[in-house]
């Protein structure tokens, strides 16, 4: 299988954590390939390292050994600054918990990644279905439409 068909390649990834004087190996040489358009579920017991693997693939964490290639680019060789930029543009996370920022409104929470990416105008002007927090040209309950009712509610 050529590399350019693989969206994600995980090669011999290990992850060790230091807990006091002990070193705990959470991931032991993981290999994984996910092709473009493929839907993959990672299953395992609680504590088996699923979240750690997701965090490493999502560039929130770094592996102790091994390499991760996203679209053929080895992210383990990237600096922290490059990783932030790459993660903004390439990876979307749906967290297990909501992980909302309570001091922000629902709209501002949705907008936040675009603000950090410097694409704030995109949400107001560039996105076809969303302008100033309301749908444009779509019925209110369209599946691809966000409606912000008040500061903390959206559909």
């Amino acid at each position, binding site marked *: 299988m050529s590399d350019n068909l693989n969206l994600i390649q995980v090669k011999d990834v290990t992850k060790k954590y230091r807990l006091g004087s002990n070193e705990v190996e959470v991931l032991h040489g993981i290999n994984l390939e996910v092709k473009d358009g493929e839907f993959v579920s990672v299953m395992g017991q609680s504590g088996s390292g699923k*979240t750690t693997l997701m965090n490493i693939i999502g560039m*929130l*964490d770094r592996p102790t050994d091994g390499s991760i290639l996203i679209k053929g680019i080895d992210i383990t060789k990237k600096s*922290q*600054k490059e990783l*932030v930029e790459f993660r903004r543009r390439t990876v979307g996370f749906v967290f297990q918990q909501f*992980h909302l*920022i309570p001091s922000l409104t629902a709209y501002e929470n949705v907008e*936040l990644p675009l603000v*950090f990416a410097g694409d704030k105008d995109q949400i107001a002007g560039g996105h076809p279905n969303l302008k100033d927090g309301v749908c444009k040209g779509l019925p209110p309950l369209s599946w691809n439409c966000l409606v912000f009712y008040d500061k903390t509610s959206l559909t």
Partner: protein
Amino acid sequence: MSRQIEEVLPGLEARPMSQIVKNEMAVIEHTQSSAMAVSIITLLVSTLTIASTMLASVNEKLKEIGIMRAVGASNSQIVFMLFFEGAIIGVVGGVIGFAIGTVASLIAAPYLVSVTPSPMWGMLPLVAGICIVTGMVASVIPARRALGIDPAEVLRSV
């Protein structure tokens, strides 16, 4: 000259004007030095207070900062956010302090030194500037703490 006057007019104390001015200037300089020392100490205490407040704020917002980093906030954006917060705290505190200080001196000075001071509004921009810088300097340690937050660890623990 003053001695000659005292000899001619016994019981009279004569002093040269230059001596009087010199003595008055020494008192003013001493007062200014004391005021400057108090100001510097106040500035240091303010810096430490803002730093402590900001550090507590960062510790309370570990989760929020972790989420922000996870959704794409760069180090410089986190630092800017905290420096901005520090600058706002500094300038609000500075302007309130300036207003209270002005009112207090207008009330107290006539009783203490028999002088009614005129408010130094021209100093306000300088005070605001110093307070902004103080707030930003105080944000350095909280910013270092915020940059040390591991988003993966924060998200795992909540």
